[in-house]
C-alpha cells in the first residue's frame, strides 16, 4: 500500500573533507539532474548527504560509477502551505498521529512548501497522515 507515496531519496556516504559535496553536485550537473532538496547529517568524521532529485535512477548510477557509496531511502513528502503557520499545521498533525521522526528537512518549491520525513514505519505513518487530511506528494510529482 501507499507505493505512490514512497519517494526515493538518495543517501550518500561521505567523509567530512573539502570537495566531497562539490563532487556530488558536479556529478548531478553533468547528468543534467535537478536537485530539489538536500541535507547533510554529520557524525564524527563523516556525513550522510541526502538529496531529492528529479531523476533518482540516473543520479544513483552516476554516483555509484564514480565511486560513491549510495543507496535509496524511502521518505514521505508532506505538502505544506507556504505561509506563516504552514509548518506548524503539518507538524501538529504528526504529533496528533503519534509519529516518531528519524529525521526531517524541508524546502520551498514553486507551488508549495514540502516537508520531507523519514520515519521508521512508512506504511503506518502514511495512513495516519492521510486520515488526518494531510496532503502527501506522490512519486510522480517529482519526476
Amino acid at each position, binding site marked *: 500500500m501507499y507505493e505512490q507515496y514512497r519517494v526515493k*531519496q538518495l*543517501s550518500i*556516504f*561521505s*567523509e567530512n573533507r573539502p570537495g566531497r559535496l562539490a563532487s556530488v553536485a558536479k556529478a548531478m550537473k553533468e547528468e543534467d539532474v535537478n536537485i530539489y532538496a538536500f541535507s547533510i*547529517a554529520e*557524525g*564524527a*568524521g*563523516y556525513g*550522510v548527504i*541526502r538529496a531529492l532529485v528529479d531523476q533518482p535512477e540516473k543520479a544513483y548510477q552516476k554516483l555509484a560509477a564514480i*565511486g*560513491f*557509496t*549510495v*543507496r535509496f*531511502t524511502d521518505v514521505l513528502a508532506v505538502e505544506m502551505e507556504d505561509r506563516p503557520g504552514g509548518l506548524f499545521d503539518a507538524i501538529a498533525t504528526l504529533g496528533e498521529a503519534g509519529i516518531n521522526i*528519524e529525521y526531517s528537512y524541508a524546502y520551498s518549491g514553486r507551488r508549495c512548501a514540502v516537508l520531507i520525513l*523519514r520515519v521508521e514505519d512508512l506504511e503506518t505513518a502514511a495512513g495516519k497522515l492521510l486520515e488526518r487530511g494531510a496532503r502527501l506528494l506522490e512519486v510522480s510529482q517529482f519526476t
Partner: protein
Amino acid sequence: MVCLDPRIENLSPPELEEMQFRLLKSQVYRLYSFSPFYHQRMREAKVHPDDLRSLDDVAKLPFMYKRDLRDNYPDKLFSAPRREIVRYHASSGTTGKPTIVGYTRHDIDMWTTSLARSLTSIGLGPDDVVQVSNTYGLFTGGLGFHYAAERIGAAVVPASTGNTDRQIELIKDLGVTAMAATPSYLLHLGEVAEKKGVSIKDDTKLRVGLLGGEPWSMKMRDRIQDWLGIKGINCYGTSELSGPMFSECSEQDGIHIWGDIAYIEIIDPDTGERLGPGERGELVLTMLQKEAMPMVRYRIGDITEVDTERCACGRTHPRIRRIFGRVDDMLIVRGINVFPSQVEHTLMGIPEVGEHFQIVVERKGTLDTMLVRVELKKEAFTDNILQLIELRERISHRLRNSLNVGATVELVEPDTLPRFEGKAKHVVDKREI
C-alpha cells in the same frame, strides 16, 4: 606425498640433528677462517669453533643483527671472494641505506632447491602455471619464485607488479593455477576483477596463492579461500636468508623450515634466552650452507612459534607458525605493545568493514592517541547515522578489548585507503619522540 628430496625431507629427528650439527660445525669453521667480520665477532664473544661440541652449543655463538649488514655496506661482510659472487640483491632500507646481499652459484642453487621443495609440498608441479606477481629486480620476491617454479617444471608467467587489469587477463587467458603475491595485493586483484565482472573463483583456474611479504591474519586467509576460492599458502623468507625460501605444505599447518638449510631458534626478544616449542618469541636463523655471507644466529625480527612435531604430510623438519608481528613493527602506545596484525584480526571479525585499514598514532601533549581508519563496506552503509555511530563504537570497543588500549575509529569511504603492491604499510606514526 610427493617430495622433491625425499631422503632429506623425511629424515628422523636424530638424523636431522646430526646432519645439522655437521653442517653447523663446518660452516662456523669456514666463517672463522674466511670472514674477517665473523672471526672478529667470535673473538669478541670469546668462542672458538672447537667449542661447538653439540647442536645446543649454538647458543654460545654471538647474535647477528640487521645493523651488521648496514654497518658493513655494501660487501664488507662477505665471506666469499668477488669472483665467486654471481648475483646481488638489496632489501629496501627503511632507515636510509639498503642492505646488500650477495650470492654464490651454490647459494642460488640452495635458495632455488629450498623453495622448489616447498612448492612441491603444496602439490605444484609441471602441470601448473605460476604467475609471479612479486617485484622482479633488487627485491628477491620475483626471481626467487621464478627460479623455483621453473625448477619444478611449472610454466612461469613473470608478471611482476602493477597493471592489475593485465594481470587478471593473463590469469584467465593462460590458465594460471598459482600466483605469488602479497595477500593484500591478491585481495585487491580480486576486487578489481569483480568490478570488471570477472569472478576469480568461477571464471579462472587460480587455486593456489603463494603469499607472504607482510604479516597477515587467519581471517584474511579465510576471506581469500572463501571469496576467491584460492588456497592461501603462507610463504616465508627475506633477502638476508636469500629470499622467499620456505612455505606451508598442502596441510597449511605451519611453514616447513628445511633443517639442512636453516637452523632455527626462538628467543625472548628482551633477554635473548631460548624458548621451547610452542612458545612465542623472536625467530633466530642460522643459514647452514650459505657461502657468500655469514648468517649465524641472525635476529630477523619476526615473532612466531616453532613446532617440532612431525607434520601430517609426513615431513619431519621443524615448522614455524605464521608470523604474528615484527619486533620492530611493534607499536608501543601508552606503554602497551600493539601489533598491526591484532588490529587486522579484530577488524576481519566485523562484517560491516573491509580488510583495509590504517593506524595513525599521534602524541597530544604527553598522551598517545591511536586512530584506526577503516573502510565501510558499500553494502553496510545505512542512511541512519545512529547506526553508523553504533558501528563505530562497536569497532572501538572490540579494539579496546583485544589491544588493551583505546582507539578512536574513523569510518571512511570504500576504496579510499592506500592499497599496497609490496609490503603493506598500515601504520602512520606522527609522534616525535
